[in-house]
């Protein structure tokens, strides 16, 4: 199994624990990730103000991916969502393809439909398969409980990235957590948005969105919250202290990436999985796997 890795802007600079654990888990599960330094940004940051150029940038990445003839696998939900949306929009709209290709031609690139875009979690479930993943697990995590945060762009809009899971009752992250033997907490605020999309415009509002979920999970005392998106991480891990302060309360919710949980289940050490870079440390996990 081979896939082209789409790293995007944030993961390779700010979320090396996600990247390192994702790469190790893929390797252990027989997935070869191919790198291409030319890929860079997906275009999402421009969408709100200039969606025409955002689409050209996404089309540029899709054109480059086409040259590899491999599925394009993103770690970031915003990248996966943006690229999938671009593929959907362009494959239904010949006029936009003409415009985009006029802009790409001077760069020696041409968009043509047909690239499969997917989030890493989806790729693991659809290509490796839950049973095969379970069969590779070597360590039992049954004493731990994780609270998945699905986030928004991993599941929505279902028009462009639907089919894997039900955005109103998602189970796909939970299934992977349970593959390690660990328990899943499907808490009441499971579907809440992290608020990351509005952080630049209104920090207080973004904090209110993330804070409600953090407060709930703090009270439920899960081993850790599990993420699959670096933007959700900005809110739940990066902003956690500031949010608690603004709410005039104290809480500490450990935050991990789903790939770090899978890596532990596959027998890897916390060091190999980049746990040193987790700022809201999952103390219970680290104590259990101290070398």
């Amino acid at each position, binding site marked *: 199994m081979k896939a082209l890795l789409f*790293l*995007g*802007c*944030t993961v*390779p*600079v*700010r979320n*090396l624990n996600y*990247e*390192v654990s994702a*790469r190790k888990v893929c390797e252990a599960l027989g997935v070869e990730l191919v*790198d291409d*330094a*030319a890929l*860079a*940004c997906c275009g999402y*940051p*421009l*969408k*709100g*103000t*200039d*969606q*025409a*150029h955002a*689409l*050209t*940038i996404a089309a*540029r990445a899709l054109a480059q991916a086409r040259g590899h003839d491999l599925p394009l696998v993103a770690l970031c939900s915003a990248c996966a969502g943006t690229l999938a949306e671009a593929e959907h*929009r362009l494959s239904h*709209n010949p006029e*936009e393809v003409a415009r985009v290709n006029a*802009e790409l031609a*001077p*760069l020696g*690139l041409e968009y043509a439909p047909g690239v499969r875009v997917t989030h890493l979690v989806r790729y693991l479930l659809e290509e490796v398969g839950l049973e095969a993943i379970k069969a590779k697990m070597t360590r039992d995590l049954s004493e731990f409980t994780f609270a998945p945060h699905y986030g*928004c*762009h991993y599941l*929505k*809009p*279902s*028009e462009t990235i639907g089919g894997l899971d039900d*955005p*109103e009752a998602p189970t796909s992250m939970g299934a992977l957590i349970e593959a390690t033997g660990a328990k899943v907490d499907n808490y009441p605020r499971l579907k*809440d*948005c992290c*608020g*990351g*999309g*509005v*952080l*630049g*415009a*209104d920090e207080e*509002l*973004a904090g*209110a*969105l993330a804070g409600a979920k953090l407060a709930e999970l703090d009270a439920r005392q899960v081993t850790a919250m599990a993420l699959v998106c670096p933007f959700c991480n*900005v809110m739940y891990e990066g902003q956690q202290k500031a949010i608690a302060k603004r709410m005039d309360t104290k809480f500490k919710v450990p935050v991990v990436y789903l790939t770090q949980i899978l890596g532990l289940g596959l027998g890897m050490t916390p060091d190999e999985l*980049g746990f040193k870079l987790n700022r809201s440390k999952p103390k219970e996990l680290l104590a259990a796997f101290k070398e």
Partner: protein
Amino acid sequence: MSVRLNDCDPGFKHEVAAEPGSEGIRACFACAACSARCPVGANRPDYDPRRLIRLTLLGRREEVLASPLIWLCSSCYSCGEVCPQQVRFTEVLTAIKNIAAREGHAPPSAKVTAELLAKQGRLLEITEFENQKRADLGLPPVEQRPGDFQAILGIEPDQGEAGEEPR
């Protein structure tokens, strides 16, 4: 507040609907399913997707484009999932924001974002420091190749000052 029809621009809804992805605005029948599901609205009662659609359909062009509220959407796509009319409000609002940006209403961070992409090909800068950190973890180096981004965005090298990093 009463609506004076003289202040309305009946072409505004067509202008919005002409942006890609937002044709659905015409189908809205004001059921408010989107407003009920919106997490931003739950925290900010002045933010209401249905109301923004009504104002747009009524042609309150300047009021909508200049409103700070249009920048408060978290892009969670929840509204679209519950809309019985396939309005795709997130895309409608993207269209409105795009028009607002063209008329100078975009937040300053928008310009910085485009300049960073033209300068770096990515939002976050890659220096030797980042690649050293990556190497320490056994990760391959990443590169900045802004050339394509400069060409697409029409921003010349060096013109783009790297300002504050957007969050």
